[in-house]
């Protein structure tokens, strides 16, 4: 634990001293998130409600998504870069240290601009989501669980590059995840919807906790926790198995 906090402190100091245009970047992040809020407000002003979703619920979705996503991309930025690091053979510096490999890697890079998302998420929740005690509890728990699920998913798809040597799947999965998590899951029907509850668990990242804030459902809550456990396990296992096949950049740079 001491080694993880020390690593995180260094990562933070590193990111902070390299923050050229920091406030500009953060404002850009916030404007981006704000535009989506504008879209949803305009949409529901016209539509009233769609498949059980209304403005307040979709704002809760946005708040949890930007909070959870901001934490993952801000504090565990390597979750997203893992596949590239593995393919490039850039894990050596970590592997020669007596630290738990995956946790150390995850906290080894901080991206300050993504903290703009986090700031936005918290602000949106406080201002736009009617923070009663029960909603605060669901917002916090939902964000935490979405951090776990998202990290697990990113680690799992990133680990594929241990097996294939390239990271296309990782990039693709990341973009698909971000895109699908943004919309209320009930917009999707049929097999597409099933995918978002399983292989690409976008539903659990933001839609499900937002639904729970509106009307609590124990089964749904347990499903969400279950998904977090499953993806954390799958991510960890795939990383561990993949690491055995780590080539330290030798296989792909030769010949």
């Amino acid at each position: 634990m001491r080694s993880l906090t020390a690593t995180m402190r260094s990562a933070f100091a590193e990111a902070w001293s390299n923050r050229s245009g920091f406030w500009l970047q953060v404002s850009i992040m916030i404007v981006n998130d704000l535009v989506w809020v504008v879209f949803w407000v305009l949409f529901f002003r016209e539509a009233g409600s769609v498949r059980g979703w209304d403005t307040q619920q979709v704002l809760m979705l946005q708040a949890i998504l930007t909070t959870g996503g901001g934490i993952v991309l801000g504090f565990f930025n390597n979750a997203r870069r893992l596949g590239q690091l593995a393919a490039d053979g850039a894990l050596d510096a970590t592997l020669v240290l007596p630290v738990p490999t995956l946790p150390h890697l995850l906290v080894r890079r901080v991206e300050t601009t993504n903290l703009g998302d986090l700031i936005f998420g918290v602000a949106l929740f406080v201002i736009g989501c009617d923070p009663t005690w029960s909603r605060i509890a669901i917002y916090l728990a939902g964000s935490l669980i979405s951090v776990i699920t998202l990290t697990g998913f990113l680690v799992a798809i990133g680990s594929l590059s241990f097996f294939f040597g390239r990271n296309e799947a990782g990039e693709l999965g990341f973009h698909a995840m971000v895109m699908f998590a943004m919309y209320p899951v009930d917009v999707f029907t049929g097999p597409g919807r099933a995918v978002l509850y399983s292989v690409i668990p976008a539903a659990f990242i933001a839609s499900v906790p937002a639904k729970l804030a509106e009307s609590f459902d124990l089964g749904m809550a347990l499903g969400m926790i279950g998904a977090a456990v499953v993806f954390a396990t799958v991510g960890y296992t795939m990383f561990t198995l993949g690491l055995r096949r780590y080539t330290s950049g030798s296989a792909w740079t030769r010949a």
Partner: protein
Amino acid sequence: MTIEVEQLSKSFSTGRAKRRTLVEAVRDISFSVEAGERLAYIGPNGAGKSTSIKMLTGILRPDSGAASVLGITPWTHRKQLARRIGTLFGQRSQLWFELTSLQSFRMLGAIFDMSDLQLATRVGELGELLDATEVFAMPVRNLSLGQRMRCELAACMLHEPEILFLDEPTIGLDLLGKQLFRDLVIRLNEERGTTILLTSHDVADIESVANRVIVINHGSVIYDDDVEVMRRSLFTTKRVEVGLERPVIVPEIAGAQLVEHTETVARFVVDTSKRSIRDVVDAILEHLPVADLSIVDPPLDEVIGAIYSQLAVE
């Protein structure tokens, strides 16, 4: 034995999906190292040096064979081993680029469970040893390569490792930087008894640092002996390059074999065990219109070629 390697092999698959081929990076290598040795592990680029070191530090798993480092199998107990060895990979840094080395040391200290006092004492010692106390306090971004390498060396020695693995540590350093670095490594070894395993493709690294040499090529060990022995048989070869003031016919010069001759340049190979380099140079200066003269070591591939031909003869 500090390091024991038995028939270690490792292959990588290369190329794109359909045309995948296996390349044997390391093939059945065996050797052992005693505590306190300074071993140079040399070979041309792509010979399997890095792959070997990465297996001995637990980063890579071998396909077959066995190895024991300080009594530990590296790839099954990598983290346990990591507490007792230090590694420096020339191209991969352990330091944070934007921070000072001291800040990086603080993280490493926490990772190696050192108390603040232990760390401060150790950093003080290393600062003195490496003559780098001030350099430690500067952001790594602003350091020259030589300064950075000293900081890297300090980083991998914070926890007083019993073995140091140095992979191409002098790559990119200027002549003076290389010499300083070599002296340091020797001092570490002599004062603390740290075992050194060093890879390089610079012949000078081997001559001045190592007391034993293993040559690896195409994944196999082709030579393993004391540097003294190798020096006697191989480092007695020098090349002499002479820039000529005007085109001339080059006369026979005893002890030197003319290997190349143009209007402006003459190149000789000298066997210094037969005639001293001084005598040969004197003779050249006397008989040729010399504009410029340099004496160089044969490049490593020539040394290895020589080892090969010797092996073939024996």
